[in-house]
């Protein structure tokens, strides 16, 4: 099991090459090898959505993807999407609406929401709830998350953009 393979991929805009075990998941690779701990492992079987990352622009379960399968792809994690301010409006809306408590599901929720709004810019509440059906949250009861995504959809449709999220004072 210890034979390693070289993998070259782009993570958060940076192209890098690493040796990985064939059995290593993309989630473990991001968390352990790259220190990108914003991607979380909740069930390791593709049910809870905590490990969602963008792979070539689409939400993918990093726990169901082997690192070697990600060769040649572009991965974006919550850290990268924060830096690039792509999800700054979602982050702001989640914060304002308190659409997170413990925060463990949050990176996956943000990526699911970003994926939803990319394919369906003005979803109904039912469509938002449906799109989140693979993202488990034990804390919030979901309503605040639905509210936040609905708000961002409306703001985006109105052409509003959000400044960088992390630099604003609380």
């Amino acid at each position: 099991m210890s034979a390693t393979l070289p993998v070259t991929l782009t993570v958060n805009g940076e192209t890098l090459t690493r040796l990985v075990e064939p059995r290593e998941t993309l989630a473990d690779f991001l968390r352990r090898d790259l220190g990108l701990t914003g991607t979380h492992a909740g069930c390791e079987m593709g049910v809870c959505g905590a490990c969602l990352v963008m792979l070539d622009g689409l939400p993918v379960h990093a726990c169901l993807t082997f690192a070697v399968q990600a060769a040649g792809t572009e991965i974006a994690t919550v850290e990268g999407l924060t830096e690039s301010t792509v999800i700054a409006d979602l982050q702001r809306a989640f914060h304002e609406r308190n659409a997170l408590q413990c925060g463990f599901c949050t990176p996956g929720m943000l990526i699911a929401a970003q994926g939803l709004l990319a394919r369906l810019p003005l979803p109904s509440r039912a469509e938002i709830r449906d799109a989140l059906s693979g993202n488990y949250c034990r804390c919030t009861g979901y309503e605040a998350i639905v509210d936040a995504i609905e708000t961002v959809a409306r703001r985006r449709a109105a052409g509003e953009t959000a400044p960088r999220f992390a630099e604003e004072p609380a």
Partner: protein
Amino acid sequence: MNAPLGSLDRPNSYIGRAVTRPNAKRLLAGRGRYVTDLVLPRMLHAAFLRSPYAHARIVSIDAEAARAMPGVRLVATGADLARLCTPWVGTLDHFKGMKSAPQLPLPVEEVLWSGQAVVAVVADSRAQAEDAAEAVLVEFEELPVVADIDTAREPDADRAAAGIEDNLCFRSRLDTGGIDALFAGAAHVVEEEFHFGRHTAVTLEPRAILADWDASEGKLTVHHATQTPYQFQDLYSRHYGIPEASVRVIAPDIGGSFGMKLHVYHEDMAVVGLSMLCRRPVKYVADRMESFVSDIHARDHRVRARMAVDAEGTILAMDVDDVTAIGAFSTYPRTSAVEGNQVIRLMGAPYRFRNYRAELAVVFQNKVQTSQYRAVGHPVACAVTERLVDLAAARAGLDPATMREKNLIPDDAYPCESPTGYKFEALSHQASLIRLKALMDYDALRAEQAALRTRGIHRGIGIASFVEISNPSPAFYGIGGARISAQDGATLSVTPSGEVRCLISVTEQGQGTETIIGQIVADQFGVAREKVRVITGDTEITPHGGATWACRGAGIGGETALQAARRLRDNVLALAATILQARPGDLDLRDGLVVDALSGAERVSLAEVARIAYFRSDTLPPDARAQLSITHHYAPQGYPFAFTNGIQGCHVELDVDTGLVKVLKHWVVEDCGRIINPLLVDEQVRGGVVQGLGAAFFEECRYDDNGQLTNGSLADYLVPMACEMPDIVVGHIETPTADTALGAKGCGEAGTAAASAAALNAVNDAMAPLGASIAQIPMTPERLLKSLGKI
């Protein structure tokens, strides 16, 4: 806000305001720091070989092949760890006659449930540790499995554990007297046998622990995903014989807890010993499959209950028999008997009747241990009571809301006592019911329901009143001998720049503890909220306290912060008075400035007072008291518990062909006393409701007759997801407790307490015209179709 703010209404008034959580921003940016994320130099990883049998004797362990595997540093058995760690027994002295078999980190002779950790492997990586665990050979001899609550209590029953004389962990009886006569003479008696499934917390971050024994210093540091760092500091100290001051427990960001992460787990105790044996940091994170077979489970009650009612529908008495199945031993240190105890004591709590009898039996069996999980006992007591109230209403010919109007304790009847001995300071059941009916537009919903029934659409409306127990005094654990604090402590300091640091013993798991403490300190001290930094969850930094459970964060932690902030403010004003040659009573602190209390005119800034205190003490008179740090402790006084109350409504539509239930909407009116932050309170309530609805419709740990959990994965164990959950309307009544200046009582369990009861009543209401009923949760489609006679 219908309660006057009174003395709390000051400049920088944050109490009662919906402000956002400063600490949520880094979680949103992916910068959370959970134990799962932590890496220490020379850190090793633990994995466990688990028992495939629910009850077995360990015949032999052969670890030679495993020890030779790549990266393996240690293979440890129960005997290895028993040399370091003393056994624990999960009983409390005030639960008379309670018993439980002693426990060790890993078993020496006998395994007690399927999934129990038997052998630990420590290796350079988790994968290597798991590889090696597969190579450990354990020979088991199967023993009879105790898996049924009735056979377990028969005289010659097999025992769930060798160390106990029978399978009865604890029994309790309450009786106000004359119950049989009351039932015999009652106009109506309704009765039912209820079944409440086992379920479990399913925190999204599994249990995680990283123990770091430093032999050179004799110091243990444990990074632990727990609600209660001080409790574990005490336990690691006593069971491993390390001086308390040399044990540091740090609880960083926690990915959900809900009570589950405040119990002793065998693996967690083992990891401390593994670190001592390896003299290196050792980390263990449960994977999801391990979580299902090792995190505490909860509920698992069979309740036979009846209610006596007079001809006008006045409730006369309740008679209850609760049998609850726990694991093969009682959980340490909070036990597995608290839930049953609260079930029989909370039964009927919102109502006026005075006559009550209850019998509780807490029974061992070979399954995962059960213990405290969000809203301990409340959902069971509430569902039994509220379903019986609905049945009684039907017999008396009353609408369910009218039945409650008639029987709820009047809002002007306080203080009063429940038939089970709980003392209520002030509750608001009647006002809550009125508010709920208005929010639901109850009469219109009933009219719509009747109209839809004629079209074959089966909707149901359920309501459920509840009482929630919170802010426990030492009567809860302290008097039972458990070293679990009922008080909390805070250290407040003014920094040299005039900002405030608050180190407090209550902990954060996302509910917003740090936010509300910051609001209270800023409000009461007199600075902008941004100037207050709140730090929690580290026994080496924060004063000893109970931490966050049983809704203590706001009620006890909040009052601690309030009193501490007032004391620090007095110190600042005394020093400012010395500097200004004024009287302290003529000064006030507002928005970071010492001002003339009457005119509000600025006299000197807090930053200037701090600068003088820290850097120019030479300019102060010799008797000046420059005490800009204080430590303050507060323990609840007055009532032994604070009680909150509320009422929930649930609106469902039942598909009688598939047994599927759609929850259309859910309403909650709750009274948590003083609301510190409405945004956070509402989200506590909503999250709690969804946990209750999960129990009502989906969640159940299903076992076969051999004690094997048959649905122990997140694909098989159903949790509520966004697409299945309704929008939830939350309303408030505020009845602050007079026991504290703050008046907050807590809101963490309210949602879970009554959601499943309201859902149970709603589904039964939908089925009533079809002559069907159900008294079991979760209400799965299969069970509903059986109730409807369709299968």
